[in-house]
């Protein structure tokens, strides 16, 4: 999402976020609701069986990603789609911008796509004079607000109804209301016109089926269907690891994704789109372009962090994470927040930019508990922390302290001396300490256990 290589200022962002009472209340409520709904949805289901199956299917594809991309491309082409492979974000933007400019299209309707956030599509199209109308209500809200999503499933969760009401009144010129149903109706009215007059629709895809060349889109609002079956031109932007081998693999993911994301058995709509409108049909775009983004995924699939690519973007780890729950998505200053976001940001944007996010976890493991595809998040985070040290991206003082720690831990004599020093200097340190924090620090015992037991 960011072109900058500057390290993310997570601590600063987080400190600001935890001071925002309204934000914390909104996040706490959301995480709580999602957690309960998820648990209810998985009651009396063979969840462990599903998780294992989904994990295996993902690994099968990752083992041979190139071949699956080829197979998908071939079958999608047979069905009438044009396939474009985008090596990175810039290429994805160029491809999509090119398709629209070639046809003189000046406005597109768009349904939710996290990949479009990853490649920073909207800003780019805007620069080219192409208007993008976000149609997912949450995305529409943050688009009007000029913000980025703070949660991958509910992008505007950081806003309460009053904030949305004020936003609509200000930017749309309508009468102020804070009633969610009324606000939804306002958005519906505005967007319906856009749908019916749009020359092009851009969507993401939750999955892509190699055997049939189909893309799968889950939505609740119906905007995804509007964007993909009404305009004559449809551009689907997705990433290569979302491919599953065949239709027979879909049921497991259909059972896992909606339950993990919102606690629903299934979303209101699930569309399976295969190519362009065929002879005798009355539904479907006449032109379909599928842009497959790599952005480092092929390489990651071959390496030790490959399991992160099993992720199906359900957001359950965000809801389970005690850090995310307290700071929200914006603090991560990245396309993807929460536990999966820490790993993906470091992998996609590099250690220089992402390393502060590696502090944003206690490795408590709550994320791994809820991941529907068994991504070993704590393990990946630990490995990335080791990488961070090896690359020298930790503070110098910390490195020195750790070296000192190693000396003490390896030498009982030095260890006892250090204990004695801490005990002796404690009263002085207390007097000198500026923060009140030291008041709450445990007091070194006058006689250590080793001395008591010897």
């Amino acid at each position, binding site marked *: 999402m960011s072109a900058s290589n500057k390290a993310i200022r*997570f*601590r600063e962002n*987080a*400190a600001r976020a*935890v*001071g925002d009472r309204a934000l*914390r209340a909104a996040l706490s409520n959301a995480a709580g609701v999602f957690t309960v709904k998820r648990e209810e949805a998985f009651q009396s289901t063979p969840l462990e069986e599903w998780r294992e199956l989904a994990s295996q299917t993902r690994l099968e594809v990752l083992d041979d990603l190139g071949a699956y991309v080829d197979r998908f491309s071939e079958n999608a082409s047979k069905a009438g789609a044009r396939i474009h492979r985008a090596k990175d974000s810039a290429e994805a933007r160029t491809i999509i911008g090119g398709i629209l400019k070639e046809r003189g299209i000046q406005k597109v309707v768009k349904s939710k796509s996290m990949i479009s956030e990853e490649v920073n599509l909207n800003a780019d199209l805007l620069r080219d004079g192409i208007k993008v109308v976000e149609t997912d209500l949450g995305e529409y809200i943050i688009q009007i607000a000029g913000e980025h999503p703070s949660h991958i499933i509910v992008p505007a969760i950081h806003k309460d109804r009053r904030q949305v009401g004020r936003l609509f009144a200000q930017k749309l010129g309508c009468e102020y209301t804070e009633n969610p149903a009324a606000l939804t109706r306002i958005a519906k009215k505005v967007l319906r016109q856009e749908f019916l007059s749009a020359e092009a629709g851009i969507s993401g895809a939750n999955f892509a089926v190699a055997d049939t060349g189909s893309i799968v889109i889950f939505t609740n609002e119906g905007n995804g269907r509007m964007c993909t079956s009404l305009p004559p031109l449809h551009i689907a932007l997705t990433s290569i690891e979302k491919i599953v081998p065949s239709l027979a693999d879909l049921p497991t993911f259909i059972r896992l994704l909606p339950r993990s994301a919102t606690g629903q058995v299934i979303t209101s709509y699930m569309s399976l789109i295969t190519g362009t409108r065929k002879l005798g049909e009355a539904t479907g775009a006449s032109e379909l372009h599928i842009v497959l983004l790599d952005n480092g995924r092929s390489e990651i699939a071959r390496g030790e962090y490959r399991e992160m690519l099993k992720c199906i973007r359900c957001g359950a780890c965000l809801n389970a994470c*005690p*850090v995310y729950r*307290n*700071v929200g998505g914006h603090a991560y200053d990245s396309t993807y927040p929460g536990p999966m976001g820490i790993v993906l940001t470091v992998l996609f944007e590099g250690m220089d930019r992402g390393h502060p996010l*590696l*502090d*944003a*976890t*206690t*490795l*408590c*493991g*709550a994320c*791994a*508990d809820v991941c529907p595809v068994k991504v070993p998040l704590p393990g990946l985070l*630990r490995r*990335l*922390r*080791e*990488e*961070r*040290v090896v690359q020298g991206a*930790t503070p110098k003082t*910390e490195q020195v302290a*750790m*070296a000192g*720690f*190693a000396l*003490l*831990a*390896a*030498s*009982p004599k030095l*260890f006892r001396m250090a*204990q004695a020093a*801490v005990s002796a200097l404690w009263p002085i340190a207390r007097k000198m300490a500026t923060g*009140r*924090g030291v*008041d*709450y*620090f*445990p*007091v*070194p*015992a006058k*006689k*250590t*256990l*080793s001395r*008591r*037991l*010897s």
Partner: protein
Amino acid sequence: MQVQLFSTCLIDTFFPETGEATVKLLSRFGVNVVYPRGQTCCGKPADSGGYTRESRKAAEHFISVFEATDGPIIIPSGSCASMVKNHYPGLFRDDDRMRLKAEAIAGRVYELTQFLVHVLRVHEVGLKGKGRLTYHPSCQLTRELGVREEPLQLLHSLKGAEVIPLPNADRCCGFGGIFSAKLPEVAACMADEKVDNILQTGADTVTGCDHGCLMNIAAAAKRRGSPFQVKHIASVLAEAIP
């Protein structure tokens, strides 16, 4: 039966009374406790920061101290026990000789309540407790070691003490080793949430198996002026011994 006690650096330096309580508790059940000299720290502080080289040094020392001994190694801390049991072998993934030693040591390690319930088969401490207790299950203890029921079993068997379930018990308290030092604002929020949940129970004492967590909770409680006590489970159980 004879066991080796690894006290952990936190208990050795800041909470020796917990170490003494552990010895008293094990002795009550007929176990002879040996405290190998020369023990220092399991290396977790370095490990959680990703400093493999430094944590290996701590691990090598731990292994050298304990390989000269026999029998179960008891550790009154979920995170330290998990460090040795689950992470030591991985630290030596490139060194077959040390990895085998690490695996041998790992196989001898028990977290305290794990040992009491599964090896000593103590389901009933046969002791009289008092007051209203609530229990905080630490993250590595539950998720890495799989110790969930054992501490509660022991607490519930204290006749006269009331054990109140802690709401949102499985939420991290915000210690996370260096996490609380690097992101103190977030850690404070997490600790506050934990304190709020404890206050909801009306308990006069919160207990747990990890001093890292307990230290963090105690600091937040003190900052908030909360009235409850914070005690390691070894102390809670040992205090009930007449």
